């Protein structure tokens, strides 16, 4: 891929221009919110039960899994890497975490969440280390990990499966529990997104991720510990995919060795719709999470509108292409505006 020749993202600029660029980038996130609102209210205008609290609850809870995984994936993509292994991590984590209820009877539910996180973080650590130490492009490493983790999952699961009867009722209830009409897991995801956003915006190590993605060579010369940061991003991405696996177990209840198959491309689609450039350096985790929410909402809207579900996937693909085409247009405009401004300032 033309990573080396991709246009540099105009992110880090002197103060006056920073505000302008910031505005445009914020407008990008705002754009997703607008589209989301159009979809929600447009659907509600036709079919009012779309705005029922139960319907909204279901959509939010459903989109949460993808939003959580998308946050980690966004952090990896911002460093100009990609993590294709998340779907397999979801599968492995879903089965192993749900089956701990059998192996360790009476284990508290929060401990199972840590099991999922730890499994995911372990997978991410291996991926990150192989990629960083072996100096292999992450696309290749994570493609290999996609196969390996899924195969390990198949070997562990065998022909068996965890069924809803084998996990405590309280575990499955997490999906439907809610606070003031908002599902608990959606609130949890929102807190997680906020923390990740704050980290990426205000912490040095978070800003380093953008620096690496904008220009790895410049970041290296500026003394950014690239390997350390990239491995960290993969560990976080893996951990969040592991968390997504536990949420999958909560939502579906019945887990076999195919859990999470194909999630990787759906998550990347959500991240890209959310305005994260596929070649790194720009975008944020809020956009990625909103991208996941938007794709989930569209699926639900089609269902409520009674439109043939068969065309749902095609529509998602078209939307993704539209999103990246629009992004390209916005970027071109932005570059033009910056150039004009620089000429005016005589810089």
């Amino acid at each position, binding site marked *: 891929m*033309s990573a080396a020749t991709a246009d540099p993202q105009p992110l880090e600029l002197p103060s006056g221009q920073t505000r302008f660029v910031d505005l445009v980038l914020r407008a990008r996130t705002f754009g997703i919110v607008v589209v989301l609102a159009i979809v929600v209210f447009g659907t509600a205008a036709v079919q009012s039960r779309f705005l029922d609290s139960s319907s909204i609850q279901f959509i939010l809870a459903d989109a949460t899994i993808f939003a959580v995984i998308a946050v980690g994936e966004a952090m990896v993509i911002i460093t100009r890497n990609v993590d294709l292994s998340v779907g397999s991590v979801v599968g492995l984590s879903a089965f192993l975490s749900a089956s701990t209820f059998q192996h360790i009877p009476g284990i508290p539910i929060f401990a199972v969440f840590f099991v999922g996180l730890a499994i995911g973080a372990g997978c991410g650590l291996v991926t990150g280390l192989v990629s960083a130490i072996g100096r292999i492009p992450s696309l*290749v490493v994570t493609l290999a990990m996609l*196969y*390996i983790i899924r195969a390990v999952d198949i070997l562990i699961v065998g022909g068996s499966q965890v069924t809803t009867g084998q996990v405590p009722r309280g575990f499955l209830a997490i999906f439907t529990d809610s606070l003031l009409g908002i599902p608990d897991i959606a609130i949890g995801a929102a807190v997680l997104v906020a923390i990740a956003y704050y980290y990426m915006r205000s912490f040095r190590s978070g800003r380093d991720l953008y620096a690496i993605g904008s220009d790895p060579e410049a970041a290296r010369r500026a003394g950014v510990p690239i390997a350390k940061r990239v491995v960290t991003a993969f560990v976080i991405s893996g951990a969040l995919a592991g968390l997504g696996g536990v949420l999958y177990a909560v939502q579906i209840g019945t887990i076999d060795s195919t859990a999470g*198959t194909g999630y990787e491309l759906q998550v990347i689609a959500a991240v890209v719709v959310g305005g994260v450039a596929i070649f790194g350096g720009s975008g944020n985790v809020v956009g990625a999470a909103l991208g996941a929410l938007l794709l989930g909402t569209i699926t639900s809207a089609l269902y409520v509108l009674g439109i043939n579900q068969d065309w749902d996937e*095609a529509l998602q*693909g078209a939307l993704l*292409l539209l999103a990246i085409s629009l992004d390209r247009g916005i970027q071109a405009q932005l570059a033009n505006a910056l150039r004009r401004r620089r000429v005016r300032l005589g810089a």
Partner: protein
Amino acid sequence: MEPDANLGAVASALAGGEGSTPQAGPEPLRGRRVGGRLAPLLRWESGLIVVLALVVLLGEQASTTFLSSSYLFSSVFNLTGEVAIMSLPMTLIIITGEIDLSVASTLGLSSALLGYLYNPLGPHWPLGLVFVTLLAMGAVTGAFNGFLITRLGLPSLAVTIGTLTLYRGIAVGVLGENTISTFPSFYTNIGVNPVPGLPFLSWSFAIFLVLAVIFGVVLHMTPLGRSLFAIGANKEAAQFAGIRVKRTKFLLYLLSGVICAFAGILYTFRLNTSVSNNGLGLELTVVATALLAGVSIFGGKGTIIGVLLANLVFAGLQGALYLTSFNEEAFGIVTGGLLLISVLAPNGPELWRRGREGLRRQQRLHRRSTMGKQS
């Protein structure tokens, strides 16, 4: 491996050029050239031949039926022809530094449309017309990829993830939950009978071999082929050298679409089934094959003989593992492991050197510090 031997003479003549450097790693310029006089032995393709020999040995150890014609047909060549065919245009695209993840969806769309258009309860078009329509459809889907990537300048990874979803989505939309399997046996026999006179070879793999020769000649012996390496090595330099970079890439995507649509026809007839999820997820297998073949993900490197060998390795390994006690569903461990080794191995000597230097530096520091204590 008869096909290998048949092609060997032609292919080894073709294999010269960019792909022949031993390092396929991301930074081939850094560090000393590995091997010196041993360089020819360290060539990527030589390694693949050794792996292939090991695979054959493994299969024969597991069961003597492995090398029987009927087993080679049913469990090696018949199962992998379509992936092999799709790996050819994928190789060219990766050599130019791009990627096409929509190949399996194009195969699926072609398969779904074949069922839909031929369906005796539906449009029921004559098959000849259906074939032409499908190939035209492949040209359109490929051209759409090419348009978005070369004319709008969008990254191919993102575009083809989008069209992966879009084309698969259209397949689902066209066929829904239906399964069509009423094709004439004249065509579906390609999944039952081997090529006449070559009882081990499936039609799909035979077509792959023919296409591989054509692709090999074009890639390694024509100006067009060399221009692909030039584009992958340095797009700007290629542009200044007068190569029409965008048009070339556009045509490659168009070609990929047509060939994947054709692979979709073969896939449908081989299984005698048209369903919307035909070939689901095969895109990653195709990419993995190309990478195992030594095609650099950064572009500019790769040989068709490597692709041929990588396809034989994957096909043979799968067939061999069926005969062992190994759980064949966990084939992914082998696929993933091979993929990792194939990219780690070329960096091995470099990693070894770096590791040793690091160790020496530590020892020096250690010695200095102990000396400091003594004085």
